């Protein structure tokens, strides 16, 4: 059977297809690199038999910026802004994960207040990411209203980020051994107000979409990922949990003191697109639960590791008055935090899945090798397995349910 490649913009080929010149042939259609449903620059080569997809081949790399190469040529603190650009849907979680990875290599323990603030930020990032994830997913299925609802809520979270660190989108909030600054006065109250307002919106979203007949018919039983496949293809995060695997590092290998918080991890049963929606909806509520607990139990004390002299820059008021501290500040800014030699692998439960940093250090302020294990990259690798057999109109729904971000996938 012959295979003919046709570009969507190629009018003559399309009319030839309409007139039946390609009868009995398989047609290759390119979806993307720039398509509303690909959430970034992803190209899918779809081979069609009539309307049914027989083969799907993702083509990546349109957003490849060489983040790993960049990381190997700058100090640890200089790389923090680059982590924002990985998963730019919930950037602050990447900051925290990167800081935790380097701190694990350096053997630093941050004080409880710092941990609690970081945990609060992580959950706000999960809310940001899931709100956009479900909103865009609903939009891919045809409901623009739901997207408006969730984006309004996300906007409030942006304002919280602005109050916290001055930037709405690219936060760069953490430093190795601490944070950029303490939380401002009254911020916790604002966070509580925002999450309190968010709960009824999530209920409304549930009423609007979850039991919507059109959405249900489009998502139910579509793109099923079995438990075995999900593990074999390295899926993580809500996509893995929707397939029925209870892997959540917040419970299994707690970091940041997640073991002290009470929350549930939702698990799906069949692993279809509808399950992936349900898991994200429940995770939104669970995140709000954690945020509330973090606000209630916010400890006092320092928000940076004071004893880590060679790693964390001194406080600004000390820099301006003491020569010793000024020199130390200069050394840390120019040479980077002095991290001992060794290798370490740290993964954290990002909104999209497990974000891992593998750092090999020869000592000094610059990593020798840094590998970023990105969840979206692994999540996408299942596409050639689950897309064939469905129709072209089902592809946006499957893509929406996987909730990937190309900045992280291509790095």
């Amino acid at each position: 059977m012959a295979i003919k490649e046709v570009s969507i913009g190629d009018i003559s080929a399309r009319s030839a297809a309409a007139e039946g010149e390609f009868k009995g042939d398989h047609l290759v259609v390119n979806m993307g690199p720039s398509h509303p449903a690909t959430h970034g620059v992803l190209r899918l080569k779809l081979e069609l038999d009539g309307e049914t997809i027989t083969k799907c081949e993702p083509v990546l790399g349109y957003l490849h910026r060489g983040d790993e190469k960049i990381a190997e040529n700058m100090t640890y603190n200089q790389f923090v802004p680059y982590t924002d650009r990985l998963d730019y849907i919930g950037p602050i979680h990447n900051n925290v994960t990167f800081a935790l990875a380097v701190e694990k290599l350096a053997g630093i323990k941050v004080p409880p207040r710092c941990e609690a603030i970081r945990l609060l930020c992580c959950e706000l990032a999960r809310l940001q990411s899931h709100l956009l994830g479900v909103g865009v997913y609903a939009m891919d299925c045809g409901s623009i209203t739901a997207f408006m609802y969730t984006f309004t809520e996300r906007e409030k979270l942006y304002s919280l980020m602005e109050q916290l660190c001055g930037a709405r989108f690219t936060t760069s909030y953490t430093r190795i051994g601490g944070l950029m600054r303490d939380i401002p006065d009254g911020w916790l109250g604002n966070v509580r107000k925002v999450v309190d307002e968010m709960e009824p919106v999530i209920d409304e979203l549930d009423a609007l979409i979850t039991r919507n007949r059109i959405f249900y018919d489009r998502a139910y039983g579509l793109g099923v990922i079995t438990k075995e496949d999900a593990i074999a293809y390295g899926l993580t995060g809500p996509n893995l949990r929707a397939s029925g695997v209870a892997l959540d590092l917040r419970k299994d290998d707690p970091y940041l003191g997640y073991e002290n918080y009470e929350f549930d991890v939702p698990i799906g049963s069949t692993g279809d697109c509808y399950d992936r929606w349900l898991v994200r909806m429940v995770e939104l509520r669970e995140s709000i639960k954690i945020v509330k607990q973090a606000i209630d139990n916010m400890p006092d004390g320092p928000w940076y590791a004071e004893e880590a002299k060679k790693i964390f820059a001194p406080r600004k008021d000390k820099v301006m008055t003491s020569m010793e501290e000024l020199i130390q500040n200069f050394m840390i800014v120019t040479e980077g935090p002095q991290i001992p030699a060794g290798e370490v692998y740290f993964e954290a439960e990002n909104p999209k899945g497990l974000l891992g940093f593998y750092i090999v250090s020869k000592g000094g302020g610059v990593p020798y090798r840094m590998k970023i294990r990105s969840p979206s990259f692994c999540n996408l690798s299942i596409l050639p397995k689950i897309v064939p057999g469905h129709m072209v109109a089902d592809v946006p729904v499957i893509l929406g349910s996987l909730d990937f971000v190309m900045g992280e996938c291509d790095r």
Partner: protein
Amino acid sequence: MSELTDDLLQAFPYLTTRPSRDWPAFDCPPEHLLAFLQALREEYGYDFLSDVTAIDWYEESPRFVVVYHLYSIQQSRYIRVATPCVDDNEPSVPSVAGLWPTADWHERETYDMFGIKFVGHPDLRRILMWESYPYFPLRKEFPLAGHEVELPNEEIAERTGVKVKPAPMMGGPFHSGQTGPMSRREPRADDESWNETKPRPDELESFEKPREFRESARKEQ
């Protein structure tokens, strides 16, 4: 030394432990890699392949080391397995894509970035760079500012009037080295094609400038 380390060292005599700051780590010779990873998966419960990557040790031999991170969902713990590549110039290791399908893309990426061949991989192609790209960007000798390469598409090259595309990171991000006197260690642009002593390539007369530059220059004359 943990119980698991003792067990593994006894059961697999070819293993050596590897210095690590967190999880148990082992060096495994490439000829035993597949058997060892399969045993880890089936007998020790490390069912989740989290990551495959490589390290370029540049001037040492073996130069390339491929690193695998495995996770056990039941026991919630990781293990790191490293294997040196056979040849420094034409590095290769056996592929584990048959054991875990997720290794397919990880190995393609490692091949793309380091040029390591995975023997037995079903479809070893580039994944992030384009198909005919001649370099391996994550090797240590690859300059941070990038190599100047011909545009992949001749049509674009014709339209823009440049045959050669300047590397996007020219004059690029700041770099602080780890050696030398203090004054040299200040962060500075780490670009290998031009600096204070060597002129910028577009200031050279031999540099072929884009069409609009040439035309505006002609008008001025």
